[in-house]
Every structure is written in structure tokens, then in C-alpha cells.
């Protein structure tokens, strides 16, 4: 492969890639995301390969194993280009029919397209399916169009134009300014302004600076980062290089999961290809800017997603957080300024540079700009990854995109942010998706996992469940977190098992407050959040639980 040394060479290469591609050539895009993998899409992919070989169509039809399409519930998903006909729940035995009828015959197979379970309406294209119709897919939309293992595919959809624009046409300050004007906020949970973080690191003393992709994604029920990073690793990488340029860093780290081999392979592949094209390494695009990236794997513990713990892990130590009187953007890895952003945040960067901060800031609410990926799970009809503009109401997401609650049950609550998030009740469903609005309600958006709970769920049990999880994941370094979680868990288990005492709720509240105030890192500080939010909105459940327990005891006396 040729090394690209200038913007014009990049454009030439892009033209070359596009000219080789016939837009009318049929392409079968099969989702190879994590969710579809478990539904047996491996067999579907090999069935397509076999069928195409058998019919001797190898030169006439492309087969593309793509990243997650988002609609995991109906997987394995197959999209046939150029008509963009979308088939859901495809099995290997459907394959010969799809090839002969749709790929060759250009006919839609009615049985395989999406049927609305309520109205019975059929939809042959993704854009007509309710799950997709109500989304704004800026970031994940490209997933269906590219093979994550091919950098050419990424170039074909306009990839790396933002990088060449920033490196060759903009100064680092200008890039930073753009990000600040776009008001890009960290998607990992805190909602911290990315521009400010970058600026702090840029102005911090020292030559050596680092940028890091946090692809740990430990939040339970969150799987959108994996969807982006597995499905379109180049976009994250492009964002990271732009960020490095703005910050003045020449060394980056990708911190990702050890238990998802597909993710790691795709990242490794993406790095190797980018390096070959000269988009990574020395003198990128002839701009004089050099940047290298290393991949690090986590050891599968929740707390290693916390910034200081993550950095300690990269240093080769056990992932224990440290007090952050000095931000990691000033003293991070090896006490050097380090900018840590989540996968989704980095993936937003090329969009901002490409289209300008004004365009970007035109989407969203006053204080939360752009789109947000959410992963829907729990008692919901359509499990999957959805991308919506900030400001979309939770009700729209749950009912419009998620398709509501299965088996006609009523919704009880929506839980955000996994073990360190909070729940909102049905009555607050019209709240818009917004960092600050949700935080005000005690249910901070977290990384974007939305766990939908139906009327049969016991909220006491949900709070207990998350504390149980955290009690195993607390690193044990600071006492308030280690002991506080344990004691809260003990009381909640007692309430569940009917061994309840007067004043337990008040005691819970007290411990929650102390744990939150005195813990070292975000894990401990927010460990009691699910408990607090359930106490806030579902206090009656705790009380009736306690009342119910008390009654038989009184009878005995």
C-alpha cells in the first residue's frame, strides 16, 4: 500500500478507491456485531459465502461482514445494497432465496422484512423501520456501509478528511477552539467538557503528553462503545489523532476489554492499516506531526474504567484509583498530562471538524450538543443501540424506538448509568435526554445504558442488585466505599429476606450520604446513587416491604 504524504494524495487515493467501486454492484452487508454473533450470524455469513461461490458470483457480488447495525433484537441483520433492502432474523436456510430473489432478481422477499408487531405494517428499508426511523445516526450510521477491517471502506465514506483538514489547514489552537465551540461533552459518564480537558492538558507543563481512548465500557448494559469501536474503529482513531494534535501529544493509548477478541482484532487491524497509509506514525500526511498508539487490555474489573485507575493500569499497576486533587489532565500516566476520553467522544471529533462546530451545535439542547448513543436493554421489545439527538424525550426512546414493554406490561422505571446511575419513574418519562436535566433528577446519564424495568420489577431488588455488584468490584482501597457498600447491601438483603428493623431506611440514607461524601473515586461517590434514586421515587416500595415484614412478626408476639 502507498504511504500518503499530503492532502492531495489522500484525495487521490479516495478517488481511486471510489472509482474502483461500482455503486450498482450488489453488496450483502451482514451484521457481525456482538449481539448478532450470539444469534448465529457466523453461520449466516458462511452460508452467503458458500452460496455466492456456488452460483459463481464472486466477482459480481460483494459480501461484507460489518459492525453492529444497532437493532440487535432482530439479528442477524442483512442489508442488500444498492437497494438497501433490510432483512431481519435471517437464518442460513434463507440465504439461497435472498441471493436468487433479491441480489439477482432485485425482488423483496416479504417474509423476511420487518413487520410491525402492532400494526402489521411491513418495512423493506432500514429507514422505514420504527426502530431506525426515529434516530439520528451520525456516528453509528456508517456501520452498515463499511467493513471494519478495511480502511478503504472508511475512506470511501469520507474518512480521514477531518484529519487532513485539521493537520494541514488548522492550527492546534483552532482545532481546540472548534471542539470548545461545539461544546462537546464527555460521553463516558461525567459529561465533562472535552474542550476544557484538552486545553488543561495542552497548557500543562511538560513536553510529554498522552491521549487515551477509554474503551473499557464496564457499565453494565452499555454496549454502544463496542458497537462503534468494533464496527468503525478508524473513526475513533481519526478522532484520537486529531485530539493528539490539538493537545500536543505524540503518544496515545487505547484501553479496551480483554474479553472481546473481535474488538481487539479490529482495533489492531485498524492501527496496522492506518500506519501503512501513513496516517499514524511519523510525519502524518506530510504535516510534520507524529503520533503512535498502543493497545492495552483491561483485567476485567469495573473500577479500571475510572480515569486514574485506568492510567495506573496502563502503567502496569493494579487499577486502584488515586485522589484527584490534581486532575489527570495535568498529572496522569507517569505523572504526565493525559487526556482520557470515551470512545463515543473521540468518534464525535471528526464530525465536528468535518462539518464545523456550528453544524454540530445545532443539534441537541442548550447545554448538551450533538447526538447520544444509548443502549436499550432489560424489559424492552427492541434491545439494541440507538443514536438520538440530545433533547429527545425518554418516552420517545422507550416507546418510539424501543417499541415499549414486552407482553403488554406497564413500564415502572428506566434506569440510567448502570451500577452508579439512577432510575426515573414512569411519571418523568417526558424528561429530555440531557446531561444536566437527568442529573437533576438523580439519574445521571452515565455512558448511556438504559435499563427498562417493567411493573413486575422490585426496585428494592434492583438497588440491592447493583450494590451486590459493586461490593465485588470495589477495589477496597478506601474504607467508606468498601465498608459503606457492604453495610448498605447487608441492610437491603435483610429487607429482602424479611429481617427488617425500625429505622432501616433512615440508616440506609445516612450510610449513602457518608459513602458518597467520603469515598475516594467516582465508584464510591456514586455507589449509592441507584439506592438514593429508588428511595427518592419508590420509597413506598421500601416502606410496604417493611410493613409487610412487620405484620406477621406482630402477630407472633
Amino acid at each position: 500500500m502507498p504511504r500518503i504524504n499530503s492532502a492531495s494524495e489522500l484525495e487521490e487515493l479516495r478517488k481511486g478507491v471510489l472509482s474502483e467501486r461500482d455503486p450498482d454492484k450488489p453488496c450483502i452487508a451482514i451484521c457481525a456485531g456482538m449481539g448478532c454473533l450470539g444469534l448465529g450470524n457466523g453461520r449466516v455469513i458462511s452460508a452467503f459465502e458458500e452460496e455466492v461461490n456456488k452460483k459463481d458470483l464472486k466477482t459480481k457480488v460483494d459480501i461484507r461482514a460489518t459492525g453492529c447495525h444497532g437493532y440487535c433484537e432482530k439479528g442477524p441483520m442483512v442489508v442488500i445494497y444498492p437497494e438497501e433492502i433490510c432483512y431481519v432474523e435471517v437464518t442460513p436456510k434463507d440465504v439461497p432465496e435472498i441471493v436468487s430473489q433479491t441480489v439477482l432478481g432485485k425482488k423483496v422477499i416479504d417474509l423476511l422484512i420487518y413487520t410491525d408487531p402492532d400494526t402489521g405494517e411491513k418495512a423493506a428499508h432500514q429507514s422505514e423501520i420504527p426502530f431506525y426511523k426515529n434516530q439520528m445516526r451520525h456516528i453509528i450510521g456508517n456501520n452498515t456501509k463499511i467493513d471494519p477491517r478495511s480502511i478503504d471502506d472508511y475512506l470511501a465514506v469520507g474518512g480521514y478528511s477531518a484529519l487532513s483538514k485539521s493537520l494541514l489547514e488548522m492550527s492546534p489552537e483552532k482545532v481546540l477552539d472548534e471542539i470548545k465551540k461545539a461544546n462537546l461533552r464527555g460521553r463516558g459518564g461525567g459529561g465533562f467538557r472535552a474542550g476544557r480537558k484538552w486545553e488543561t492538558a495542552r497548557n500543562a507543563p511538560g513536553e510529554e503528553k498522552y491521549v487515551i481512548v477509554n474503551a473499557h465500557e464496564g457499565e453494565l448494559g452499555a454496549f454502544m462503545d463496542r458497537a462503534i469501536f468494533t464496527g468503525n474503529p478508524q473513526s475513533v482513531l481519526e478522532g484520537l489523532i486529531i485530539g493528539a494534535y490539538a493537545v500536543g501529544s505524540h503518544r496515545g493509548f487505547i484501553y479496551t476489554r480483554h474479553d472481546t477478541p473481535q474488538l481487539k482484532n479490529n482495533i489492531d487491524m485498524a492501527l496496522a492499516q492506518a500506519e501503512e497509509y501513513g496516517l499514524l506514525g511519523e510525519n502524518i500526511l506530510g504535516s510534520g506531526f507524529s503520533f503512535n498508539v498502543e493497545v492495552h487490555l483491561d483485567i476485567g474489573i469495573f473500577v479500571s474504567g475510572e480515569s486514574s485507575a485506568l492510567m495506573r493500569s496502563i502503567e502496569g499497576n493494579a487499577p486502584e484509583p488515586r485522589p484527584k486533587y490534581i486532575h489527570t489532565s495535568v498529572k496522569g500516566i507517569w505523572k504526565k498530562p493525559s487526556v482520557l476520553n470515551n470512545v463515543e467522544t473521540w468518534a464525535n471529533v471528526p464530525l465536528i471538524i468535518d462539518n464545523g462546530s456550528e453544524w454540530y451545535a445545532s443539534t441537541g439542547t442548550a447545554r448538551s450538543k450533538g447526538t447520544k448513543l444509548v443502549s436499550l436493554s432489560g424489559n424492552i421489545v427492541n434491545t439494541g443501540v440507538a443514536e438520538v439527538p440530545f433533547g429527545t424525550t425518554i418516552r420517545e426512546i422507550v416507546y418510539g424506538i424501543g417499541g415499549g414493554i414486552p407482553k403488554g406490561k406497564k413500564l415502572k422505571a428506566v434506569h440510567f448509568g448502570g451500577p452508579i446511575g439512577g432510575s426515573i419513574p414512569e411519571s418523568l418519562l417526558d424528561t429530555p435526554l440531557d446531561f444536566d436535566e437527568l442529573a437533576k433528577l438523580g439519574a445521571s446519564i452515565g455512558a448511556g445504558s438504559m435499563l427498562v424495568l417493567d411493573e413486575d420489577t422490585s426496585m428494592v431488588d434492583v438497588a440491592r442488585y447493583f450494590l451486590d455488584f459493586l461490593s465485588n468490584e470495589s477495589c477496597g482501597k478506601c474504607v467508606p466505599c468498601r465498608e459503606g457498600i457492604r453495610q448498605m447491601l447487608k441492610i437491603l438483603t435483610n429487607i429482602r429476606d424479611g429481617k427488617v428493623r425500625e429505622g432501616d431506611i433512615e440508616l440506609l440514607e445516612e450510610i449513602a450520604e457518608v459513602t458518597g461524601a467520603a469515598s475516594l473515586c467516582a465508584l464510591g461517590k456514586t455507589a449509592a446513587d441507584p439506592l438514593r434514586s429508588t428511595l427518592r421515587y419508590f420509597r413506598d416500595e421500601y416502606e410496604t416491604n417493611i410493613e409487610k415484614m412487620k405484620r406477621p412478626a406482630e402477630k407472633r408476639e
Partner: protein
Amino acid sequence: MAAGHTFEPRILGFLCDWCCYAGADLAGVSRFQYPPNIRVIRLMCSGRVDPAHIFRAFSTGQDAVFIGGCHLDDCHYVTHGNYDALSMVYICKKLLEHIGLNPERLRIEWVSAGEGIRFANTMNEFVPRIEKLGPLGRGEGIDEHELTFKLEAVTKLIPYIKLVQSERLRVPDRTEEAYNKFFTSEEFNRLFNELIGDKLALSQIMALLRERPHSTSEISAILGLSPSEVSRHLNVSARNQTVETGTVDNDKIDRIINKHQGKAGSLVQVLLEIQHENHWLPQEVLDRVSKKLDVPLSRVMQIVTFHKTFSLIPKGRNEVHVCTGPSCYVRGSTRLLDTVQNLMGIRPGETDPDSKFSLETGSCLGCCNLGPEIIVGGKHHGRVTPDKVKDVLKNYE
């Protein structure tokens, strides 16, 4: 028996001076006929017979051991030494059984000084029985070599066994019923396996390895233990530094270390890769990593004990992971986990006796559309209800 040769069992007798020895004497004086296979050692009390005597007798080629004492409660001494003899015999029989020898080769009888005829009758019965059993070891199908190291293994353990006997295997009532009841009870079996069985297995493995290195499968074949048990013992002793395990290919380890050497945070990455390759981290590997990367072993241990991703004990052939993430949880993963536990008979974090499955629970892997899900050896099985899980697991060997 082989052509022409008749097997003459060699029997060693330990007889108490006050009763059985006098009884045997009386049998002789009275000219009662009994087979002349027994060689007698006279002791002051049957209670003085030590397990070491018994196993030494077997080690030097005796085919059976006979212990004769006074009738219970008739001991010449206030210590009632014959009760001690009884419990010692029960334990030694169990030990014999454990190493594959017939426990009938050890016999205890109560013969008073006036019961010459009883001694003769006992011998008339005992000797033919041993003849039938054949020579020690060969009769049980154990070759001479194996027999030696097995007996050696037990002999090495005797001081410990005596300690256990006095501490944990003591019967409070000195009555025959109480002794018989205790030593035939489940409780005794359990205690024996717990306190002595493991040690014995280990002692045998050690005796075997002292001769020359063996593989886990060889050891398991020779000792009739399951491979997982052998690995468990090896692992324990590896940690005590009594055994060096060669389960891991050192070149492979070096290759992994070299790949990451010099890179930032290489320790975590090296350990992770070895864990992925080998599925567990034996002591020698940790030592090697510590030495090669020039990191203190305490740091290595800090990392590997920090989270359950790293395992210090061998895992089963199939690692089973039941997702207990919140989405799976609200969709019924608790019941699924219960069913899996019942099917495998193990709890999370454990490996079943055949080393077929290791069970883990774990948080979300992001396939929430598949909930409740179970992952076996990296393969996802989605939407698994408790009644379906059996069908999923039966495909794994």
C-alpha cells in the same frame, strides 16, 4: 499361582503379652493344629502397635498383619490400650483401602490367655483367606514398584496421621459399639477424606515424582485419581514450592514476555496473555514473569489477586460464564444460574471433579438482546431458559 509354586503367605503377628500371646502359647501346648505362617512379636500391650510397625511389615514383604489383644474392657492396664489398637486398626484399614490394598490383610482379634482354641481357629480361618488374596500387591494387581512407593507414601504420612487420630478421630466413649459405630459412620469417612485422603494423594504424588518427572495424566493413571484432582494437588504443592510443575511451555512464556518487554505496563499485558493461553497461572510462571520483567513477585501477586480474571488454580476444559448483568438479571438469570449450578454440581468460581466445566458469573458482555445468556468457551448462547440449558451444556466434552 504360577506353575508348581504354592503361595505361602507370610504373616506377622503382634500379640499382647497378657492375653493373646498366652493364648497362642496355650494353643501350642494344647497341640491345636493351625497353619504355621505366622511369625510372632510379643508386646506388652496391643495398644503399643504403631501404624509405622504395620506399614513397615508390609514394606518388608509381609502379606498380612495380625494383632491380638485382650478382650475389650479386660486390658491389663488402666489405659485400656486395646481400644487404641482398635481405632488404629480401623484407620490403617482405611489407609490400605485408599492405596488399593485389601484391608482384610490387617486383622485384630481379642484372645484371652485361656482361649487357645480361639487363637487356633482364628489362624485356621485367616491364613486360607490370605492365601486366596495372593501375595501383597500382586493379588490386587499392583506391581512391585508401585507398591513400594505407595507404602512409602503412607509411611511418610504416619506422624501426621497419628496427630490427626489423637486430635480429630477420637471416640469419646470407650465402648465397642461406640467405636464400631464411629468408624463405620459417614462422619468418619468424611473426616478421613478431608484430613488424610488429600494428604495421602499428595504424598503419593510426591513419592512418584521423587523418582522421575511425570505428566499429570501419567500420575492420574497410576494413582487412579482424576486429572483435575492431580492438578489441584500439584498446584497446592507448587505454591508450597515442594513440586515444580512443568505444565507450561517455557518457550511460549518467554515469547509472550519478549513481545511485551520494554512496553509500558507490560506486566498486566503479559499476565493477561498467559492467562488467555494457559487458562491459569502456575507459580513457576509467576516467578518467571517476575524475574524476566524485573518486577518483584509481590507486585505480580498484587495484580493477579486483584481480580478474578486471573486464576491461580487450573480451570476446566470449558469455561462457562453465566451473565449476571442487569438486563439478564431482570430477564431471569438468577434461575438460570441456579439450574446451571445444579446441573454441574459446582458453584461459581469452582471447577467440577472431571475438569469438564469451570463456572463463573460475570457482568455484562453487551449482548443484552440475548439475555439471559450463557457463554461456554467464548461461544454465546442466547435466550437460554432454565429448561434449555441442559441441551446447551451436553454439547461440551
